[in-house]
């Protein structure tokens, strides 16, 4: 149960994704999410999670048909904030998708949990502020106050599943947090310290974040159009993406269906500007990830991009890709066009999309696309998904503060064999 810092004789275990759980504006559960990505469905609605009537732009992406009580069976419901509830639900979906029950996880020696998040319990902090405005701080609702710490996203998840022998950590690296969490899980399983990892990200829409992005002039009026010449910003979203990681040998031994291998990742920091990304540093992070995966840029078939649809991000990210891929970047997909910018969940959901692309042999589209910005010059798979043999996919995430995280996923057998029949378990979820 303990890590000692002594490596497992230098042997690096291969780590694979055997289950995925999704909450998003275009579908809950990996089956509906897959169908929606394939169809290029866009989940934009008016934001109603909090009062947005006074906001000049209030389009966004919300999770529908979600009842915390359907997923939380062991903890008191009022102890669990909305983002923690998302993490629990998406993890239960991922475990079911992987064919793993909680009792089976209890039998394993040691686990690792990492939930990435931008806002964590801030939606409840918003509620606290709203409650104390009329009366004063002594009127603070204790139920909400208790749910503010971001640690609860991972610790409550472990408690709900009854997992004791786990390292449970929330990773708060803003919009790159999902990739950080998956990378941390890769290291924990790769090194042999953990037998499985439950990793990904979760975030819930809140006033603080919409107010901030509106003030920065980054919110789009109607739709998010990554890499489009007429793009006018991002749309905020909420959701969760959680993945079950296991070492390849034990996954094979139990006959698990494998979506993809987690081949490697890279992290670095621009150390440059609080909110603007830096081209050279973003490119360096991509190279770190490809090196960790032991591949070269030519091996990459698809990039699931950060692609927020803001002017600065899209140009900087495209330029960094042109640098790394020697002016011939592979095809890309920007799923934020369909599900919005789900903050800490964004790169986890981007990773889910990349794993599905590898497993099912298709590239999800970049929706809402009209005319590619010549300054970006990428094939962003406009509007319609395409069938393609995706062997290796890169998933890019850039965050405020210059926290970059790039993940590399690959076909588990080095080549893709299209599944003859879709896994019926996927169809049953949600």
């Amino acid at each position, binding site marked *: 149960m303990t890590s*000692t810092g002594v490596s497992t004789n230098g042997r690096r275990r291969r780590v694979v994704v055997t289950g995925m759980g999704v909450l998003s504006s275009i579908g809950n559960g990996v089956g509906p999410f897959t169908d929606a990505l394939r169809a290029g469905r866009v989940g934009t609605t008016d934001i109603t999670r909090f009062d947005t009537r006074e906001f000049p732009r209030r389009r966004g992406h919300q999770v529908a048909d979600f009842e915390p009580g359907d997923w939380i069976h062991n903890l008191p419901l009022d102890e669990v904030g909305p983002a923690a509830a998302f993490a629990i639900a998406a993890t239960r979906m991922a475990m079911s998708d992987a064919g793993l029950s909680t009792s089976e996880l209890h039998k394993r020696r040691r686990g690792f949990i990492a939930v990435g998040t931008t806002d964590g319990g801030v939606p409840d902090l918003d509620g606290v502020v709203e409650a104390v405005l009329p009366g004063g701080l002594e009127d603070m609702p204790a139920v909400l106050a208790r749910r503010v710490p971001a640690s609860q996203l991972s610790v*409550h998840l472990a408690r709900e599943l009854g997992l004791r022998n786990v390292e*449970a950590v929330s990773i708060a690296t803003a919009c790159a947090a999902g990739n950080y969490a998956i990378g941390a899980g890769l290291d924990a399983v790769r090194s042999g310290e953990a037998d499985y990892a439950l990793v990904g990200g979760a975030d819930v829409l809140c006033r603080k974040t919409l*107010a901030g992005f509106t003030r920065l002039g980054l919110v789009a009026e109607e739709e998010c159009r990554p890499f489009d010449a007429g793009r006018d910003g991002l749309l905020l979203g909420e959701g969760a993406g959680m993945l079950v990681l296991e070492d390849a040998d034990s996954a094979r031994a139990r006959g698990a269906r494998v979506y993809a291998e987690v081949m490697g990742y890279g*992290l670095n920091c621009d150390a440059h500007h609080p909110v603007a990304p830096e081209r050279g540093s973003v490119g360096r992070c991509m190279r770190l990830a490809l090196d960790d995966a032991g591949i070269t840029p030519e091996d990459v078939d698809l990039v699931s991009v950060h692609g927020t649809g803001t002017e600065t991000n899209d140009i900087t990210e495209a330029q960094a890709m042109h640098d790394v891929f020697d002016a011939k970047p592979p095809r890309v997909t920007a799923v934020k066009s369909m599900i919005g910018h789900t903050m800490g969940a964004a790169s986890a959901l981007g990773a889910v999309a990349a794993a599905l692309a590898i497993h099912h042999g298709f590239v999800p589209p970049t929706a809402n696309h009209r005319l590619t910005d010549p300054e970006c010059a990428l094939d962003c798979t406009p509007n319609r998904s395409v069938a393609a043999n995706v062997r290796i996919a890169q998933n890019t995430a850039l965050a405020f*503060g210059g926290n970059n995280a790039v993940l590399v996923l690959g076909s588990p057998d080095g080549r893709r064999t299209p599944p003859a029949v879709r896994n019926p378990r996927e169809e049953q979820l949600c």
Partner: protein
Amino acid sequence: MLSTEAGAPRRPVITAWSAVSPFGLGRESFELGVSTGRTTAQRPDTGVWGVVADPVAHLVPDFEVRQVLGRAGTRGLDRATGLVVTAVRELLRHAPDIVDDSGLTTAVVLGTTAGSAQGYADVTRASLEGRRPQDVPPVALPNMAMNRAASASAIFHGLRGPNSTLAAGRVSGLLALEQGRRMLAQHRADRVVVGATEEYSQARSWLEHHRRRACDEAAALGEGSAVLLLERPDGIGAERTVLAEVLAVTSCVDADGDPVAVLRSCLSAVLDAAGASSADVWAAMPSSCGGTPETGEVRLLEDMFGTEAVSRPAIGSLIGDTSAAASVFQIAALLSTAQHAAVGDRGPDGDRLALVSAVDPDGAVACALLRLPSSGR
């Protein structure tokens, strides 16, 4: 008996540390405060903090971000961030070489509770009270992500390696140490600045007041930031010595409402992993500070390691409950204490084992075992 052979460390080592604490700015004032056992509690000035819930708190004296760090790049910087940017600045005085390679191989891993709760609350309040909901102060917006403290530390000091922020309540510091250890093991960095930060504020005061159950005789809140430099044992920088070897870190989750039982198994595991027995432990530093609800933690440590090992002043009783920063301050206090301990007060080979434990009310439990070499300093 400790089976790990003494001599050259094989595991990650702490080679420098610093702190900004209620004792003041830098390592020296912290060491002085710990050695004299001075308490730092004071009544928070309502002219500065507004109406707060705490009769007393442990505050970093005279800490105004722009006075301490200067005006360049500090406009709007929140207090939690200012504290850690300053702590890293102080750390670099003991390790100036770590930015020599453009900082590319130096990582930062920081623990937090929820960033600056005051900062978030101010923006939400401005949105609710302003003429328009977007009339929030732009200067505060870079603070609106919990990674602000870690990324600002990178910007100020040119640290361009992996940069991570994690939240695990009061065990955050120990999990940051574990994440830093793993980054070194996986060669994602050559050295890691491991730390945590916590600010005092009106928002934190009331949030903690309402979070704590009515029956808790909770310790006063404290604030500050402590940072450690973690390096691979075979690659430590020039002019630095090993202050501690990180033998093992372990963590668990209390899923059954029995944190003491979970801590007991955590402690056994950390000793097993290091090949040590409880009799080898020279000092044990619990997370609880005088009067906190985790007295069960102290009793367990006394049972396992003897009252003398737990007799050194718990840092929390001197600087208050520093929440996410607590366990890094515990390590800093052990390093201080070891330096000042009598030469005779050592194990047979001159090395000493020290243990840090942490229990968070939300269910996270962790501990770390350190070896403090006799040759350190």
